[in-house]
């Protein structure tokens, strides 16, 4: 039988040693007195070779030929081979949560280094060991704010990812948390003025995204200060690759910073596993959800690492825990760390520069097409919006036939933006790719 070491004679002898005449008696004595189920939908087992062939066939039924300009919070960046090589080491990927620190220093030190990388990227003081994804991380940040302030009203920008907002709506079904959603501006801005007006002494936190869902970059220092003036927290969900060059959330005085870490060396993989990250001001660290690793010393005074501040967590605090989260996304956090290490201080800035330059080039090329117009004229990193003289979803459909995933039609989430297309350009897209997209689009318009 696959993956089972016991031979028939082993089984017989082991059953006898455990005091059973056979398998039947074992189940009987254990209290399992039900008949075996039929499992009608389960096929017969197959060999590794056969399963591989089957999966190769299925993989071939997914498109790999498209030149990708779709982002929307999930980006097609270069992943250096060293990342996969390291996370493929069995010592990392077949270990579990480092409950026994002396036997898990590798994982623990790596998480400490990851926490440090996240703090340095975001300009914050304390990071946890990771959360499930950007959406759940944002929900956790919101709940942290509600608990810290003792208030139940949350102000959230309509320029925050609609994917995240729908998740938050779902989690709030049974909770006494009121969300006030402030519609985005008509361009690519969050409408900071209206966002500011929505704040009051009832607000637990204001939530914005950086860059926002339309790719727009705004200085949030003012809205963070306004939140603080109202006794509320300022929460920001951000795209970590953009932080290679952007003013940090820490510099803008955010209290809690979260984000989707997929862009840091983690494959798109049809929606997961991804990486939620969270970093906070140190005064809030004891309110943070998830695992946290700390540096300490052993009996001989030698430096080592442990899981710490565990009295926040479910296995000790049960119903009083800061969250129900148990495991995190450790291996994805390791991917992010190895990515940031191998790309490194200067390389990461170079990635940012490549993204920005190519995005500007792509936007200029597309705006040359007759009928294509700019949406918003503010700052952007590597994602921007254009207006097309037709239904954007339809145009994207036609461009798929030409070999392009040309962008994300905003009409799916914003009914007043049916003629708008959100386009992401990473360092993977060449000048030729961009020119070809522009040509294909022009031919269709």
């Amino acid at each position, binding site marked *: 039988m696959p993956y089972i*070491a*016991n031979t028939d004679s*082993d*089984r017989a002898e*082991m059953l006898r*040693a455990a005091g059973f005449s056979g398998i039947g008696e*074992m189940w009987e004595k*254990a209290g*399992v007195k039900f008949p075996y*189920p039929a*499992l009608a*939908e*389960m096929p017969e*087992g197959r060999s590794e070779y056969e399963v591989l062939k089957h*999966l190769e066939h299925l993989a071939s039924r*997914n498109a790999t030929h498209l030149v*990708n300009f779709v982002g929307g919070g999930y980006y097609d960046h270069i992943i250096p081979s060293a990342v996969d090589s390291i996370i493929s080491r069995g010592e*990392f*990927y077949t*270990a*579990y949560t480092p409950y*026994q620190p*002396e036997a*898990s*220093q590798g994982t623990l030190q790596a998480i400490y280094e990851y926490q440090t990388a996240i703090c*340095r*990227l975001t300009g914050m003081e304390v990071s946890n060991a990771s959360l499930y994804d950007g959406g*759940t991380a944002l929900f956790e940040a919101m*709940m942290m704010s509600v608990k810290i302030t003792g208030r139940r009203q949350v102000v959230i920008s309509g320029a925050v990812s609609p*994917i995240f907002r729908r998740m938050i*709506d*779902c989690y709030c079904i049974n909770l006494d948390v009121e969300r006030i959603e402030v519609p985005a501006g008509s361009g690519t801005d969050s409408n900071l003025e209206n966002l500011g007006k929505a704040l009051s002494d009832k607000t637990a936190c204001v939530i914005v995204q950086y860059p926002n869902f339309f790719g727009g970059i705004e200085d949030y220092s003012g809205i963070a200060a306004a939140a603080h003036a109202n006794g509320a927290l300022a929460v920001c969900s951000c795209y970590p690759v953009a932080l290679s*060059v952007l003013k940090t959330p820490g510099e803008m005085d955010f209290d809690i910073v979260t984000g989707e870490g997929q862009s840091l060396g983690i494959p*798109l*993989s*049809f*929606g*997961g596993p991804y990486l939620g990250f969270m970093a906070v001001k140190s005064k809030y660290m004891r309110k943070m959800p998830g695992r946290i*690793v700390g540096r*300490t010393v*052993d*009996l001989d005074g*030698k430096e080592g690492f*442990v899981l710490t*501040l565990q009295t926040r967590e*479910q296995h000790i605090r049960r*119903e009083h*825990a800061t969250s129900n989260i148990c*495991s*995190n*996304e450790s291996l*994805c956090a390791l991917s992010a760390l190895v990515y940031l290490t191998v790309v*490194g201080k200067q390389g990461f800035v*170079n990635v940012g520069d490549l993204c*920005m*330059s190519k995005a500007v080039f792509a*936007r200029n090329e597309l705006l040359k097409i007759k009928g294509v117009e700019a949406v918003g004229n503010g700052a952007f990193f590597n994602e921007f919006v254009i207006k097309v003289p037709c239904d954007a979803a339809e145009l*994207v459909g036609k461009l*798929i036939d030409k070999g392009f995933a040309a962008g994300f039609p905003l009409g799916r989430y914003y009914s007043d933006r049916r003629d708008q297309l959100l386009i992401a350009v990473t*360092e993977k897209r060449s000048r030729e790719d961009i020119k070809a997209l522009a040509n294909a689009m022009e031919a269709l318009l």
Partner: protein
Amino acid sequence: MKLIYQSGKSGRTGAVLPSLDVPQSSAVPSVLRRSATAGLPEVSELETVRHFTNLSRMNMSVDTHFYPLGSCTMKYNPKFHEKVVRMAGFAELHPLLPQLRHGGTLTQGALTVLYETERMLSDILGFAQTTMQPMAGSHGELTGVMLIAAYHKARKDFARKIMLIPDAAHGTNPASATVAGYTTKVVPSDPEGNVDLAALKELLSPEVAGIMLTCPNTLGLFDPHVGEICSLVHGAGGLCYCDGANFNAIVGRLRPGDVGFDVMHVNIHKTFSTPHGGGGPGSGPVGVSEKLVPFLPVSRVVRRNDGTCALEYDYPESIGYIAPFYGNFGIILRAYAYLLTLGRKGLVRVSENAVINANYIAAALDGVYDRKYKRTCMHECVFSATKQMEHGVHALDIAKALIDRGIHPPTIYFPLIVPEALMIEPTETESREELDIFIAAMKEIAELSEKSPERVKECPLTTPVKRLDETSAARKPDLCCP
């Protein structure tokens, strides 16, 4: 080992990036730029690889050591699964692709994987449908409890505010129930290690939304009254949640849906052999009986008459979106490969051998260590270091002594109702010889605990670090390299 931030040199980089093939430009004005470059490492690719390879060697793992960590099901993770998830057709697939026009036709392979895994799991669990979206066990718990809440709400039964949870339960159960808006009440265990039926009956009321029961329970025991418990809770108008953390004990042997449960999560990274990753990513699909189907999250994958798969969103009673997309697809894909390899018969062998292995250990160590509930166990056996405590040796000391003997320790101090608990789960993939080595080590440590307890208490001595000062770690937290 030195931190990566203490290695390398200013100006060094491991990155080999494409050169700029468009004019240098930027739409980010200087006022929106960070004031200083992020302090990331400045090392070569070799330095990176050597650093992390050496870090990895300070870990115990399933690939390197016997790892009988109770309730975590540290079974072998087949290597070809890693190959499958790296196939470009899966790894490079953008999750928004099926939401574009004609996008469904571009993702048929991935949608088929989701659909067929869902069907197989529903069959294995004995439920009508399963959502693949929860990203971990605790996330599945939260989803499941939210489904229970949606059910009561749809029936306009608003009085049900209480979730019952046995005292042996994992901490995530009460935490998940709380995050879903419930207050929790504890159901005690009886002297046999089962749910105390009399106490349960007293707790049942029109305010009870349901019960969260781990099956088999966290003592590694199968509660023979599980059917009766479900009937009692149903009789009071509540629903029964099965925590499937221990499903490896019964996979292929018993379907929780057949016993009377209404909803359950299963930890893919336990029962279905996906790697634990040093603490995630996992996956925690939730199966439900017919009456909870309307409330399942969206999107859902359906198979049309022409055999193609598609995403559907139009379910007005759905609780909504608990994940950004379709779940931890890469993890689900590994489970799919595992299920196809094992097939029906292979599944039954999993639970059989898991239970044989655990009972083999239980029989060999009975008498050497105390066992509070001396019954035939399921996939794990829970011992107690109470006997060794007479010599001042605690469960923690035994754990550390095992590390020195090349064995990852069992789970310790859980469940909370067992003093000095040592929770041992060998899994089905370990050989009898490996179990014999473990048994011998446990006996030797027990003997040493009597003769020279100080030698047990000084362990571990073979690890990169000795016992660590956890108190000062929590008191003066150093969580980030300055």
